[in-house]
């Protein structure tokens, strides 16, 4: 918490997104501060992944914009785009490692593309990153030879290859056992504290949320936008919104509705 800056690194302004005529959310605005871990919450299908993909510029918004370091994430200016790409890393839900390349080659790829380092230096940087995610000794393994949690960590090493200022995570702990998931949380916190990396994380795991989040934003499908924002403790203890209470107390929507009627 000590190193959260005052100025925003990502600004989302009146973002409206959707697929075709299907609007997923409207007029969403929030900011992510330097060094902060922001968690995006919400029920399945409310558009968390969609929001994340807009934030790192994979999709273009229907309206509004996303600024990363003051640059529009949907820019078409190649130099600006290059600047953004260098400064962000993305950990996809399944890791998205390239199956035909070893871990070494996977992590080297961005370094080879974006820097002019010698192959020896690249090798050292790659091993530095792999060691950070506890994968030393797996340099020559193919992704298919790794477990799910190892793939996630390898994906993280690749996302961190260029020392990005912002890391995006789509459900990093989905499909991991509680211990591995907790280890990943610790790793994320260490990286956040050590490197000051800003993180935007989509997750459902309550434990993770309390372990890592400095702040959360909660989306809702019916409201088509943000319904709550604050620290996890604040939301859990003092929210009056039924949907937020249900989420933090694991109450299914139907039961919650009955509760409300009673």
């Amino acid at each position: 918490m000590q190193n959260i800056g005052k100025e925003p690194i990502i600004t989302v302004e009146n973002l409206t997104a959707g697929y075709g005529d299907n609007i997923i959310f409207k007029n969403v605005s929030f900011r992510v501060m330097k060094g902060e871990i922001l968690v995006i919450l919400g029920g399945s299908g409310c558009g968390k992944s969609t929001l994340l993909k807009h934030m790192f510029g994979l999709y273009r918004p229907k309206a509004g914009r996303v600024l990363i370091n003051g640059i529009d994430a949907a820019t078409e200016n190649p130099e600006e785009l290059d600047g953004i790409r260098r400064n962000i890393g993305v950990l996809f839900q399944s890791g998205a490692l390239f199956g035909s390349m070893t871990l070494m080659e996977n992590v080297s790829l961005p370094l080879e593309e974006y820097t002019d380092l010698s192959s020896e230096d690249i090798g050292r940087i790659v091993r530095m990153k792999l060691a950070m995610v506890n994968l030393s000794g797996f340099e020559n393994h193919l992704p298919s030879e790794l477990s799910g949690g190892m793939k996630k960590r390898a994906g993280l090493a690749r996302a961190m290859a260029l020392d990005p200022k912002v890391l995006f995570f789509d459900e990093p702990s989905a499909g991991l056992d509680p211990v591995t998931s907790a280890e990943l949380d610790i790793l994320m916190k260490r990286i956040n504290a050590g490197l000051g990396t800003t993180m935007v994380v989509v997750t459902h795991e309550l434990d993770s949320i309390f372990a890592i989040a400095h702040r959360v934003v909660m989306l809702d499908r019916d409201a088509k936008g943000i319904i709550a924002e604050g620290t996890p403790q604040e939301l859990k203890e003092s929210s009056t919104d039924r949907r937020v209470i249900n989420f933090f107390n694991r109450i299914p929507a139907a039961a919650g509705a009955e509760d409300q009627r009673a």
Partner: protein
Amino acid sequence: MNPAVASGRDFAIDVREEAGGETTVSLSGRISLRNLNSVRAELHSILEPMKPAGLTVDLAGVGYLDSGGSLILLELEQYAEAASIPCRFANVSEETGGMLGLIDRAAVMAPLPPSAKDPEGAIERIGETGLKVFNDFTSTVTFLGDLLVALGSALLNPRSVRWQDFFFYVKRAGLDGLPILALLSFLLGLIIAFMSSLQLKQFGANLYVASLVGFGMVRELGPIMTAVIIAGRSGSAFAAEIGTMMVNEEVDALVTMGFNPTRFLALPKVLAAMVVVPLLTLYSDLFGILGGMVVGVVGFDLTIYTYLAQTVKSISIFDVVSSLIKAVVFAVLIAGIGCQRGFRARGGAEAVGTFTTSAVVAGLFLIIVADSLFAIILYYIR
């Protein structure tokens, strides 16, 4: 003023040597992946001529340090260790300390574990190739056995076949492939008729163009042409589809749900091919003969009637039936090898590509081999 800014670069290195050889290297500015090479070169040129008795690296002025910068610091440490002089970092800021704290020095400098791709000796390679060929052979034979069992059980229990998939592949492989097959066969008939007529004209035997085209299309070219197109269009598609399912663990999911992947995935495709290839072969024959007829009628003043009569005279029922049987065999080979190669894909996208290629190549090879066998067998049967 910041020396880094003054020099027009984003970093600066300052060296002070005190009495007794105690040296202080002050780094300032940004030390990053971007300028790693120039920082290293400058440090090298500074430290090379010196023989310091002790090294202090002052990081007070460092504004930004990433993994590239850390690598430089590690190298300084290493250099000091090699020269057996004491080395320490001074004025380490919180951020820099955090970065350095995350680094496992031993892992970075450790030698790479041996690569699986390391070149081997000739004998090992011969052995591996032998094993590969043997495995290839056994897996093909095993799959063929599986497929025959599946075919047999489909005959006994037709309701167990996924007919919906079957009809889908009939449309995909058959109907959708018809236009290109018709066009190519027509052109092929045209070419054969034209080439042969150049020779036959010398003997005034124009009429025999019809015999040649008809006999050639029905006995050899129709089935081969169809098989080649099906191998390219459908064999590859089958391999890619099943290969992708393998890579995505979809086939594993099928197995755990109690499905037999051969019966579930391969059988509808193979059955569809067995129906479609003979039908397409007939079409191919027909369009080839039409192509020949165009040359015969337009170029050599034969009437349509004489041309067709001559064609019919030159083809026997035996020829047609044997060519259809041949087509069924081709169908099993192409679709079977397509599915089998798909099932062998492991790993990732690259494997799917490799096995798709292999499906087409092996399919074409098997077609030619089977065709030669048919030529010999039919010769003796007649």
